[in-house]
């Protein structure tokens, strides 16, 4: 007869063995074989009653397991970590809620009965003591729930409305003034476009979190790209030691690196290789500065029975929350004292109660600190080759322009109305006076005209006309206009478009099918030269270069080729220009530079452009000639641009700026899901595609086939993702109108 307790412990060991085998996927077979043999022979003996002291033996068996696990823990690779966080035995958010918090109430639905079961939202309480007094500190806990492999949880892949729900409750927390704890356990978002749309909702979340006026702590277990960013723009970002944080899943990276077609599978070697080179571990990310702290997990990763780990986690989230609260204190002395007290490792945080509410001033400081924290990130990942002199001049000029602009906009604009009324009134008086004075002369002149009766002649005489805008000549023609060949419009089957002659199409027609209006893609230069006033474009920061911050194999060469092909140093060109005399700052993402992917350099230029627009109080246009997403070969250096650039946008908009986004050709993934998608004014050029993930990725991750025009701008417009669709030839006129009407009288400045 076997003791029930022993039986349970054997089952537990069997589970540990399965886990060990799973996460190493065939590696370290000798160790797992040994454990398996020993466990098998132990249970055999047990069943045949050959064991005299089962309690001692099972304990030594457990020790052996622990020993092997500890030994193997040092050889856990990046890909092993991916398998760890995705393993059904991995701790999930419910385990954390039960073990880290004292009580909790789920508010985002329950299990299957939830808007989106892959996200879990709970009002939780942490109880702390000071002396004899007990304090209940409420927090809003939000995170993806993988639910130990429960199918309906969808692996923690959140649908657009799930992310919207998360944002809704972040706002609730803001209203209630309680901190937010975000647990990031997602392989990535569910990439569908149904309202509110994967990309657009993530963008809204990031934008919202960039200005949320309560402390946010993010704890990252599985940080899969955009899905992770949707809830991780935090004051403190903590990573679990066995987690990963990456711009893309290693499988996704392998599919791109291996140039796989739909349905093909990447080899496991390539996936391992990508996982390694993407630098996705906690240690890597701490080194880059994208996380603030690592919480050590038990060997081979935390599982629900690691109760000690939950205690550590509780300590660390409390400490992190306290630290954020303390960092907002206005008095430096008190701040330092508190910080020192908390930094002591022996400090018992359960008894060091700190009030988690914040004053209005502290809230503003909190948001400013958070924004600055993100703006500082990744500066070293882009190679900034601007001469020192330029940088100093930039700094100097900002000292001069700032006060001038604040006079011009803050003082003058405020009083402008009064000044204007005064001038107008004076002018009126003068005109009336003049009219009276000259009236005898006018009568005389009128008389002469009547006599001549020159009306008929005037109606047939050549009139004065200087600008003939009808036969508009483009300032720039695509070089393809020189090639004598015809092209077939992709809509020809539907609309009966005849083949178009290249020289007409790429010259006079501006790439637009003259039968159906389909827009063939044009070069970025076409826009630079034809949209803005002639010779008004002045590029800045062209010296900031795209590089290879992760030393991704063979990538230096590929970046160099892209630079040569485009004649630019990065995929983002930033410039100052004018449209009908209105000055504007433009960040242009070029689809011709590695698909228009955004890395550290592009992000850096975008942030600089937004800051320049803020400083000069100009409207800011993001023209997306095309973007395939974040540049995966830069790993989290690229991913971090999502929150970073969004912070820059938010600061610009809150300073009163007009931020307009114009999508062209194909715009997908990270950029749309952050600093582009968060703009209140998004337009698309006709025939463009906008979305989160392409058809291949959707098929791969969701198993769904999507209809052919799923990502077309018209669909995006119908779904409410964008505000309008523009004809390419009308971009200039539409922008002019947008700047005048949306920007209002004072152009863009409120």
């Amino acid at each position: 007869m076997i003791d029930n307790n022993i039986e349970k412990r054997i089952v537990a060991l069997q589970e540990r063995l399965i886990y060990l085998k799973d996460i190493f996927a065939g590696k370290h077979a000798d160790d797992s074989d040994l454990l398996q043999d020993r466990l098998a022979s132990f249970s055999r003996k047990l069943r045949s009653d050959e064991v005299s002291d089962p309690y001692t033996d099972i304990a030594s068996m457990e020790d052996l397991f622990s020993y092997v696990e500890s030994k193997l823990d040092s050889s856990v690779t990046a890909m092993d970590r991916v398998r760890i966080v995705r393993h059904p035995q991995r701790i999930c958010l419910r385990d954390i809620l039960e073990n880290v918090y004292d009580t909790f109430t789920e508010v985002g639905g329950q299990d299957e009965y939830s808007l989106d079961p892959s996200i879990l939202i709970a009002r939780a309480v942490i109880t702390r003591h000071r002396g004899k007094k007990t304090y209940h500190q409420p927090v809003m806990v939000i995170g993806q729930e993988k639910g130990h492999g429960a199918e309906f949880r969808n692996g923690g892949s959140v649908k657009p409305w799930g992310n919207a729900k998360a944002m809704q409750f972040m706002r609730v927390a803001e209203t209630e003034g309680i901190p937010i704890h975000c647990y990031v356990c997602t392989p990535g978002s569910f990439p569908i476009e149904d309202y509110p749309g994967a990309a657009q909702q993530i963008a809204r979340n990031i934008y919202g979190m960039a200005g949320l006026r309560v402390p946010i702590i993010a704890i990252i277990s599985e940080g899969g790209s955009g899905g992770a960013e949707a809830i991780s723009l935090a004051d403190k970002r903590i990573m679990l030691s066995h987690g990963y944080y990456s711009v893309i899943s290693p499988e996704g990276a392998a599919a791109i690196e291996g140039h796989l077609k739909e349905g093909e599978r990447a080899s496991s070697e390539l996936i391992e290789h990508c996982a390694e080179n993407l630098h996705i571990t906690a240690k890597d990310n701490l080194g880059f500065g994208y996380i603030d702290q690592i919480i050590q997990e038990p060997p081979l990763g935390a599982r629900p029975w690691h109760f000690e780990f939950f205690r550590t986690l509780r300590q660390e989230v409390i400490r992190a929350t306290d630290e954020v609260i303390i960092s907002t204190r206005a008095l430096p002395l008190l701040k330092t004292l508190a910080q020192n007290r908390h930094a002591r490792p022996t400090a018992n945080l359960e008894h060091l109660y700190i009030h988690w509410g914040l004053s209005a001033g502290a809230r503003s400081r909190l948001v400013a600190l958070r924004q600055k924290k993100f703006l500082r990130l990744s500066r070293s990942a882009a190679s900034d080759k601007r001469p020192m002199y330029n940088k100093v001049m930039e700094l100097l000029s900002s000292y001069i322009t700032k006060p001038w602009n604040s006079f011009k906009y803050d003082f003058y604009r405020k009083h402008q109305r009064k000044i204007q009324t005064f001038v107008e009134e004076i002018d009126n008086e003068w005109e009336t006076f003049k009219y009276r004075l000259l009236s005898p002369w006018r009568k005389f002149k009128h008389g002469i005209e009547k006599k001549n009766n020159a009306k008929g002649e005037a109606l047939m005489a050549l009139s004065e006309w200087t600008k003939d805008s009808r036969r508009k000549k483009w300032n720039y023609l695509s070089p393809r206009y020189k090639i004598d060949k015809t092209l077939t419009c992709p809509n020809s089957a539907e609309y009966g478009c005849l083949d178009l002659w290249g020289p007409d199409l790429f010259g006079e027609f501006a790439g637009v099918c003259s039968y159906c209006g389909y827009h063939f893609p044009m070069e970025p230069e076409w826009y630079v030269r034809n949209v803005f006033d002639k010779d008004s474009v002045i590029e800045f920061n062209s010296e900031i270069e795209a590089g290879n911050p992760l030393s991704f194999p063979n990538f230096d060469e590929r970046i160099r080729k892209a630079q040569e092909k485009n004649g630019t140093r990065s995929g983002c060109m930033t410039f100052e220009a004018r449209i009908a005399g209105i000055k504007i700052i433009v960040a242009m993402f070029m689809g011709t530079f590695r698909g228009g992917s955004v890395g550290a350099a592009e992000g850096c230029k975008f942030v600089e452009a937004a800051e320049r627009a803020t400083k000069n109080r100009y409207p800011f246009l993001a023209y997306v000639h095309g973007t395939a997403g974040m540049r995966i070969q830069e790993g989290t250096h690229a991913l971090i641009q999502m929150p970073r650039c969004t912070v820059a946008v938010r600061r610009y908009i809150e300073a009163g700026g007009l931020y307009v986004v114009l999508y062209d050709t194909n715009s997908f993934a990270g950029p749309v899901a952050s600093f582009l998608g968060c703009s209140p004014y998004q337009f698309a050029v006709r025939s463009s595609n906008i979305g989160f993930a392409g058809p291949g990725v959707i098929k791969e991750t969701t198993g769904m086939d999507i209809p052919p025009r799923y990502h077309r701008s018209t669909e995006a417009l119908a779904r409410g993702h964008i505000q309008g669709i523009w004809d390419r030839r009308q971009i200039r006129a539409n922008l002019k109108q947008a700047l005048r009407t949306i920007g209002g009288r004072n152009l863009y400045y409120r």
Partner: protein
Amino acid sequence: MEKDTVHQDGKTPEALAITDHKVLVANRGEIAMRIMRACHGLGIPFTALYTAEDSASCHCDLARELGGEHCLYRVSSYHDANEIMSVADASECTAVHPGYGFFAEDFRFARRVTKRDRKMIFIGPSWKIIRELGDKINTKRLARSLGVPTVPGSDRPIYDEAEAEHIAKSIFEFQESQGITHPLVLVKASAGGGGMGIEEVYDPDQFRSVYRRIRNYALRQFKDEGVLIEQRIKDFNHLEVQIISDRSGKHPVHFGTRNCSIQSTGRQKRIEVAPGFAPETLDYSFDAAKVLTNIVEYSLTMATKVGYDNVGTWEWIVTRAGEPFLMEVNTRIQVENGVSGCIAHVAGRGSVDLIAEQIRLGLGEEIGYTQAEIATEGVGLEYRIIAEDPANNFIPWVGKIERFHWKDQPWLTMLTHVPTDRPYEIPTEFDPNLALAIIWGKNLEETKERGKIFLDSIVLEGQNASGEALRSNIEFLKTNTDQILHF
């Protein structure tokens, strides 16, 4: 067949002698037949086109007869420029004749013909001239800059409401001062054309609302809210001046005037007469001879100014007060060129084939005669014979022609692609013209008389799917013959 990108002897098409050329006839029906005959007469080989819809047309028979079995290619559409280029290359053509309609006034087509890798000659004015004179505003301004009279009103798009109202007011007042009882103002989208976005205003108070409607329509439809405001002239005769010039563009000559005032309700010409007026036989309320001289002079002035380098027609309207106004320039050969040709003599040689002249000059020959050597004799008349119902808004009749014949006469030239020896299903794709009858007489009386003799001799019968008999405009032509050249 291989595509040949180099011409014989490596010469550019301009450097070839005209008989070394090969002309692609990029048209159908009677005009294709006239071009083929002209080429044949000049000793120039040609290639012709047809579509499956149009395979019963006589222009296919004529092509085979004059050019042999291999000179005819089936294409998907006459409207597809790519088909024309492709066949031209395959058949090694060096020049393209567009005829009228289709690509005749398409400057992009002309530009493509001359600018593509394998360059050819476009038999018509150079593409820049087509573009310049194809733009009505541009033409109007050019005319005004040369003192050529144009319809009173704006000569540039008006964007400002106050200015628009001012112009409209002036036009109303001007007409009143001219004694016009029901003055009308025309408001049209400057970027429009083909009758879209045009409205008449008879009441000055109504102008503003019409103006706004047209402006909004123009903005929606053409992305340009400019409008033109002109006098609407109702009582006028439609005259035109035939101009022809060689590639130098320096010595344009004219082949007189034509009167095309007898039209369908949809403003489609039905009878054309050369010359434009008959001051010797008929009474006019104005000096008709002077009007004819003036419009010819004005047309030549403009042609010289732009360096016009092929055939073209200056279209005029002449009011009852005898004022001519330039309407537009047609930068192509016109349907009715034959009436001018039939009354013309060059250096004593009778009747001129203007299409042959067009081809000859288009391919680079010099004109070889002066205005002084061109003389005219008699009156020419052209009937456009069409299956349509003049009583019912000229609706085209569709169906099968079963019998079609007429009595040949020495003074009659019948141009038709409709077979007379077999039934013919009228294709629905194209202009409904069935035949052109050109009649010559030594004076107006004789021409009218012969016209009626011809019309009486014609037999045109058939029926449609529901068994209804063919309707034609022959009665309409007959009734209107008495009216010709009267104003």
